[in-house]
């Protein structure tokens, strides 16, 4: 490789990085939260917290379904899990409403308290799903547009990764180099370390991000091989099987499900987590009992759980399915590995935390890259030269996307606790709180794109993140000082992560207000230089 090739790659990396950097920071931060989206949703619905699985949960669920929809086409009961405290009861009504656009009919559903059997109506909130959806389709723009924009950013990141690797001839040496407290050098080292440390993760997350939207981005291969009908491809590949339900039969008494559950649990050696009933209370009722599959990341993602199917009237076992053991061809294995890694579908709690940390490393990589861009250009200024308006704009946008977004997410959580529970369109209002706060942070950042601006935003962020668990103590009965939160570790974790963010914010603030120590080794021996900006001045110092 010659020098000019590497130079052109460095150029490409710098400019592609700047163009899409802000979007990538936002995608990374919200996407990282998505690893815990169910936990966040749980935390944001405090009405559901005081609910635990009991041996009677199933009987109560069947009673509720019999009460609400005894003549439904099908029932579906999801029992509580570590990430979900209430039982979810869904059903397809006998008279199906015609769905526009051929989408899957989702039917009706209620949440049921697992120990009292009462129907729970949690406050209206988008929960963790808002942040999750934002990370792949943004908000307030048509879904398709948002997805194309995110995919474009993803492709840019794939290009930035490849060109970044080429830029570093000494990639492993760079990884072991860290020179703290030396301004631009330190940012460069931090950017390199977070990039190289998590390089496999970064490559996986971008490549699989594209694969997840392959039918939108790259339908041409499907059309080429299935010229008659694109749907044939999907039914060949993604069919869940057994979807064509029989017509409802004549009314009949159903068998007691409990003994069947014991039988299935003994067979698989695991608890049944999901119960499906087709044609309940009919003479052709079918009961299917599902257990969670063993995590196998090459397995197909949907419909892969082991399941036993029973006759719903006499309780005879009809079949045992182990779809995850179906042979999978090599290419589909690759596809499955990448996409399940992206979503950490297979992950146990510990692995999920690891992915969360990798997500933070990815966010840090994007953030340090943005700060590095500004820092380099600030250092190139001559003495007494004021930064131009474009440099100020980049600085302001950096601040708004980094500290501004963190402030907005904290505000979203606080809004969830403080907005009145009965508010009209409450879920949308929470999202409005998020965007209004973010907008305010953007305006502030553009007005004060300097060190004092950073100090103010970081201070505010610290206070807000600290406020989340405190407000939780004041407004709910499932905060850190109650047993409920610890009984469902997911709840305590959310509060603890908020405290950790507050701690990180406090540390950053302390570094920002400390007088920048005169650097021992100025990065460059230019007499014109005052002092090298230290690590503590992310946006340089031009206050």
């Amino acid at each position, binding site marked *: 490789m010659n020098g000019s*090739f590497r130079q*052109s*790659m460095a*150029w*490409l990396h710098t400019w592609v990085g700047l163009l899409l950097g802000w979007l990538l920071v936002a995608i990374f931060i919200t996407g990282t939260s998505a690893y815990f989206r169910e936990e966040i949703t749980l935390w944001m619905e405090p009405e559901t917290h005081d609910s635990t699985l009991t041996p009677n949960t199933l009987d109560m669920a069947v009673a509720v379904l019999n009460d609400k929809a005894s003549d439904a086409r099908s029932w579906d009961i999801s029992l509580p899990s570590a990430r979900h405290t209430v039982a979810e009861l869904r059903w397809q009504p006998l008279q199906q409403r015609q769905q526009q656009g051929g989408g899957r009919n989702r039917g009706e559903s209620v949440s049921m308290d697992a120990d009292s059997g009462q129907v729970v109506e949690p406050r209206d909130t988008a929960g963790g799903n808002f942040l999750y959806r934002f990370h792949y389709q943004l908000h307030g723009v048509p879904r398709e547009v948002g997805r194309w924009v995110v995919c474009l950013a993803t*492709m840019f990141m*794939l*290009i930035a990764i*490849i*060109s970044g690797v*080429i830029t570093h001839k000494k990639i492993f040496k760079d990884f072991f180099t860290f020179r703290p407290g030396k301004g631009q050098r330190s940012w460069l080292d931090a950017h390199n370390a977070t990039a190289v440390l998590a390089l496999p993760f970064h490559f996986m997350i971008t*490549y699989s991000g*594209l*694969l997840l939207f*392959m039918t939108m*981005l*790259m339908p*041409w*291969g*499907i*059309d*080429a*091989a*299935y*010229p008659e009908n694109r749907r044939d*491809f999907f039914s*060949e*590949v993604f069919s869940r099987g057994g979807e064509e339900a029989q017509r409802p039969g004549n009314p009949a008494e159903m068998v007691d499900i409990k003994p069947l559950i014991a039988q299935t649990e003994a067979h698989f050696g695991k608890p049944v987590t999901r119960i499906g009933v087709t044609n309940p209370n009919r003479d052709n009722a079918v009961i299917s009992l599902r257990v969670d599959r063993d995590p196998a990341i090459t397995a197909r993602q949907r419909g892969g759980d082991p399941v036993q199917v029973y006759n719903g009237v006499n309780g005879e076992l009809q079949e045992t399915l182990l779809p995850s053991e179906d042979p999978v*061809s090599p*290419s*589909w294995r*690759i*596809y499955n590995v990448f996409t399940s890694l992206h979503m950490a579908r297979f992950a146990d709690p510990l692995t999920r935390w690891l992915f969360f940390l990798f997500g933070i490393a990815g966010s840090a990589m994007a953030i340090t890259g943005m700060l590095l861009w500004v820092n380099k250009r600030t250092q190139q200024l001559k003495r007494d030269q004021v930064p131009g308006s474009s440099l100020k704009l980049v600085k302001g946008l950096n601040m708004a996307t980094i500290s501004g977004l963190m402030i907005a997410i904290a505000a979203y959580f606080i809004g969830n606790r403080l907005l009145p529970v009965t508010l009209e369109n409450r879920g949308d209002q929470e999202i409005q709180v998020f965007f209004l706060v973010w907008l305010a942070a953007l305006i502030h950042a553009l007005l004060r794109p300097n060190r004092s601006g950073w100090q103010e935003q970081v201070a505010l962020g610290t206070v807000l993140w600290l406020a989340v668990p405190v407000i939780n103590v004041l407004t709910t009965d499932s905060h850190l000082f109650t047993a409920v939160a610890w009984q469902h570790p997911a709840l305590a974790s959310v509060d603890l992560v908020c405290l950790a963010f507050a701690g990180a914010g406090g540390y950053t603030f302390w570094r920002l207000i400390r007088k920048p120590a005169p650097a021992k080794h100025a990065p460059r021996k230019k007499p014109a230089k005052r002092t090298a900006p230290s690590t503590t001045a992310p946006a340089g110092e031009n206050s």
Partner: protein
Amino acid sequence: MTPLSITSRTLAAALGGYALSALCAMALAVILPMPRNEAVITGILVAFLLCACAAIWAFSVRSAWRAWGGIALVSLVFGALYLIGSPP
């Protein structure tokens, strides 16, 4: 790099790169000797990587003409493969 060259290369990377990878996905989907759905996913797996590589190629070669030329050449190859493999 002049602004004109940068614009030209950007277009080559975006439009040319996408066309190249679309043709790659189409060609592999019909020409690989394996079940249809496997050929399709293999084509897509390769296409996304090629798209990124095409963009890098567009910015690494000496002139913008060369960037277009290389992408066009590979696209032609995939286009020909697609015509050979597509069902009559």
